[in-house]
């Protein structure tokens, strides 16, 4: 389905590496929809973007649902650990 389902967040003091090297990130969109490349009908997709630098300033991932859940757990553990640093 084209789920349209999209979450958008601002991303600050963060960088991504795209086709033209590193660039500062501004936003991220997270959505469950058709992937371009991954082999499932639908995937959890994340686009890290910098609109000021054009459409090509994009770091994209297409994650299977299981991989996305594992990523959430890993992020949670990492962020909690970071609080104790």
């Amino acid at each position, binding site marked *: *389905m084209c789920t349209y389902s999209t979450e958008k967040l601002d991303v600050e003091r963060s960088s991504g590496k795209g086709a033209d090297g590193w660039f500062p990130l501004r936003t991220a969109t997270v959505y469950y929809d058709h992937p371009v490349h991954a082999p499932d*009908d639908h995937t959890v997709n994340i686009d890290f973007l910098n609109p000021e630098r054009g*459409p*090509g300033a994009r770091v994209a991932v297409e994650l299977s649902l299981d991989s996305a859940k594992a990523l959430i757990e890993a992020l949670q553990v990492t962020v909690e650990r970071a609080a104790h640093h």
Partner: protein
Amino acid sequence: MAYDAVIAETIGIQGANGDVIGAYSARPFDGAARGGVVVIHHMPGYDRESKETVRRFAVEGYNAVCPNLYHREAPGAAPDDAAATARANGGVPDDRLVGDVAGAAGWLRSLPNSNGRVGTIGFCSGGRQAFLTALELDIQGAVDCYGAFVVGEPPEGFPLRVRPLGDRVGELRAPVLGMFGNDDAHPSPAEVDELEKLLQEAGKEYEFHRYDDTGHSFFSVDRPAYRPMSAVDGWQKIFAFFAAKLGGEA
């Protein structure tokens, strides 16, 4: 052997607000009078699959064109980057979509071999947009392939600019062909039922085909959702519909 040359090329057309936008066109090369088809690409973009669909219509005898709905956000960008940018911006506003498809239809009618008849077809988000063009534009038929939110409210807090069209069914100006999978969640079978009821109550011309063991995006040949039996039958229904609505001389 019959002459079957087709030209396929990227062109510029005048879309909403008079903006020149990119579009991909394919047309039979002979001079016979032809109907025209506007292909409305799905949310993932103005991509290789959409362009293949355009060429398919040309091979079947139609002048066809697919406007790049993301041209303004991302002219010349890779289709997936353009789609990501458009999504981050909230998607394509309905009024701009209508203007771009109106421009594409006008361009088709301006061709020397046009018979004056134009239809639209859209897949996924384009299915809803094809339905929208049948409300707004002078066209002779629209094909909605599993468009979500023609009826049914988007969830609360939804960031994209789509609203359901069920309250406007009475304004429909063209016959609609609908293609749906019974395992689809968006649109669900219940939503397809609701749309069919609205069309019946409004006395509008429509034709729905609903396939078992078939979900969303079943025409997508390179995705796991592809359902050959449904898609082969579906294409036959689409070409029969356009032959009836767009064929012949004006």
